[in-house]
């Protein structure tokens, strides 16, 4: 259970020595309760207090790292239930299930698909993050053969080993030492042996429970066996069960401080119907999954899920902005229209969407207006004749145009004269006020 500022204060030296950078111990305590400072910033705190506070100040959802090196994925550490309250912290990992019943060639193909899944999206490199190697055969030798193949072909890709057989687990994990693998499959029947294998390989332990009661029982026992890092599965499989259990788990960890469920959650979305699989995976992205297991890699599915994850994990406090530059829509030539708008991302989406849709190739100048829409930016003095003309001049775009003509949003028609004065040789045309007037406007000119 998280301590309040006053409770923390009682455990501090109360000397107000300011070494922590805070004016008083109380101020430091308040910040510590909010997790804005860390305990080691106070050099004088006693060992006894440190221990008490350490437990209490641990994040309610334990951080666990899946994989090592550049492809490592951080999980856990979430602080809220709804993204408007605060940014969701660690984007969930997508893992593709690879069964040890597949032929070597088929397994190799799936591993290749994981390796080839990386795409560049709005400046971020996104990919299928991990492989979920599943001991469907029940045969330890088959799982080990698959583990060996995966370790050879994709040594940097994080791995989750799924089996209920501790011996199979040990052999497979041997191929991923130092790689922060997850050993998934610890249940009421095999927990001590599985815990031992996970410890020996320094892997996190994946708890496979039948329900929430059993889950909190198993994590408690695993902790007693010296396991710190866990990934938890309540047994939820249907979409509705995933929503229910993930919601209960997140609430219990954050609001009630229940440590037994304060771990990253693994969800299973794989379905024969891949369209439905996308929606169930999407639910896990939105509702608190940290690892989402998929049945197969498909480029269309990847794009959809990567995009959704990106949307859900953006910071709600920062107005979304588009980079200032001249964007090409379609393949504009020297005669194509040239328009300008502001860099509020919704403004950009709507304007570029309308242009895209009417299939008239254009150049669209997106000007940095600190993420404000056209009218607001104009009112705030961020979208003015001098700033516009400076941007246009510096962009050098005039060189690419046969006739120097700039189309400005109808809402700032009032600026046209002033821009013309500041941009000699340019013609300023007033476009429609709303983006949905653009198709007719552009087609009429074509």
């Amino acid at each position, binding site marked *: 259970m998280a301590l309040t500022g006053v409770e923390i204060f009682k455990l501090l030296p109360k000397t107000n020595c300011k070494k922590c950078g805070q004016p008083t111990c109380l101020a430091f305590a308040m910040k510590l309760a909010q997790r804005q400072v860390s305990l080691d910033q106070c050099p004088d705190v006693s060992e006894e207090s440190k221990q008490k506070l350490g437990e209490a100040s641990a994040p309610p959802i334990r951080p666990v790292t899946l994989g090592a090196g550049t492809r490592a994925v951080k999980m856990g550490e979430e602080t809220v239930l*709804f*993204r*408007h309250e605060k940014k969701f912290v660690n984007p969930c990992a997508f893992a593709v299930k690879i069964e040890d019943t597949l032929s070597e060639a088929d397994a190799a193909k799936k591993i290749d698909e994981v390796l080839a899944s990386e*795409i560049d999206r709005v400046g971020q490199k996104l990919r299928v993050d991990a492989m979920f190697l599943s001991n469907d055969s029940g045969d330890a030798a088959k799982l080990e053969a698959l583990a060996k193949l995966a370790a050879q072909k994709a040594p940097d890709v994080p791995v989750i080993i799924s089996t209920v057989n501790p011996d199979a687990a040990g052999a497979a994990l041997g191929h991923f030492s130092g790689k922060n693998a997850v050993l998934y499959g610890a249940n009421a029947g095999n927990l001590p042996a599985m815990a031992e294998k996970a410890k020996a390989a320094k892997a996190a332990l994946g708890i496979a429970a039948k329900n*929430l*009661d059993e*889950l*909190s*029982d198993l994590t*408690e026992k695993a902790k007693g066996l010296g396991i710190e890092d866990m990934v938890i599965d309540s047994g939820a499989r*249907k*979409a*509705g*069960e995933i*929503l*229910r259990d993930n*919601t*209960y788990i997140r*609430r*219990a960890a954050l*609001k*009630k401080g*229940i440590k037994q*469920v304060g771990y990253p959650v693994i969800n299973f979305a794989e379905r024969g*119907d*891949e*369209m*439905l699989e*996308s*929606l*169930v995976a*999407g*639910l896990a992205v*939105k509702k608190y999954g940290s690892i989402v297991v998929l049945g197969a890699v*498909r*480029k*269309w*599915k*990847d*794009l*959809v*899920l990567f*995009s*959704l994850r*990106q*949307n*859900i994990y*953006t910071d*709600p406090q920062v107005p*979304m902005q588009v980079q200032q530059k001249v964007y090409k829509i379609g393949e504009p030539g020297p005669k194509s229209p040239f328009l300008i708008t502001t860099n509020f991302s*919704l403004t950009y*989406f709507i304007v570029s*969407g*309308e242009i*895209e*849709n009417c299939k008239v190739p254009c150049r669209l100048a997106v000007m940095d207006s600190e993420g404000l829409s056209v009218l607001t930016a104009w009112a705030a003095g961020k979208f003015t004749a001098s700033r516009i003309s400076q941007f246009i001049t510096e962009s050098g775009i005039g060189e690419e145009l046969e006739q120097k003509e700039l189309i400005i949003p109808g809402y700032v028609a009032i600026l046209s004269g002033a821009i013309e004065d500041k941009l000699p040789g340019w013609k300023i045309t007033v476009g429609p006020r709303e983006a*949905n*007037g653009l*198709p*007719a406007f552009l087609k009429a000119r074509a």
Partner: protein
Amino acid sequence: MPFTPPKESYNGKIFELALGSGEKALAIGGENVLSFHGFEGSTPRKPVIAMEVQDIAPADWPQTVQDVYKDVSGDPVAWALHCQDKLGAEAIALRLTGTHPDKGDISAEQAAATVKKVLEAIKVPLIILGSNHAEKDTAVLVKAAEAAKGSNCVIGKAQEANYKTIAAAAMANDLKLIAMSELDINLSKQLNILITQMGFDREKLITDPMCSALSYGLEYTYSVMERIKLAALAQNDPVLQPPMLADAGMYVWKVKETQAPEAGLPEWGSLAERGIAWEAVTASSFLVSGADMLIMRHPAAVEAVKKFIAEMEV
């Protein structure tokens, strides 16, 4: 150690709204918990998916969606019947796109005649939508509302610029009304207040906080919906208790990801499935964030979302 589920209960409840009449009449809303949270409260009504039909052939839809309706899309009645009878649509959303000054400028009278014909032909509830041209919609929706008098259907969208006329028309003809504002809980609240101040019954409203597509602002709509739902339930704010609508298809089938062929962008994969998934993931996200009703276009996307809704029942 037994786990005690931390259940949440709220004082507020979403209004239950009846749509249409006869054997295919429906109701939406009525829940006293967040969407699909039947495990801790009451969710008496399943979300409804209305399939979109237009008064003119949908020339600006991507080819992949145009194609599935190519035999019926010239005729709104045939198109609506196809959705109802062949595709199992629970409701029809008739968008009067052709009334837009840039898209044919069809007269209000002619649009009203189309509404009447479609209403007479179908049994499922109808949602009548303007062309989203604030000025023209006032004229068109007034006539359309008269044509739909007594059908208990939905009309919209009333926006800040035109709500007075449209709300008055909905009231006079006893229709349900969609109130749309732009992605801000306070704007939604303000518009709902303005409309109820005219004497419009708040229990006949549907809130449209403005939709968006995956990758094109989805998170804004998603979070505004969550905030509205929480305000309605936890703060028991009656102004925000009307059911919510996500008009998803219209936003989805405009974006590049639903149109760009695989040949030019091999890393994006199959266009057919990408487009359907784009609509289905967008729409199902808004069900999770709080929508009680969706408007969608592609039958395969509708199918996928229906399966998702079925799987969400525990």
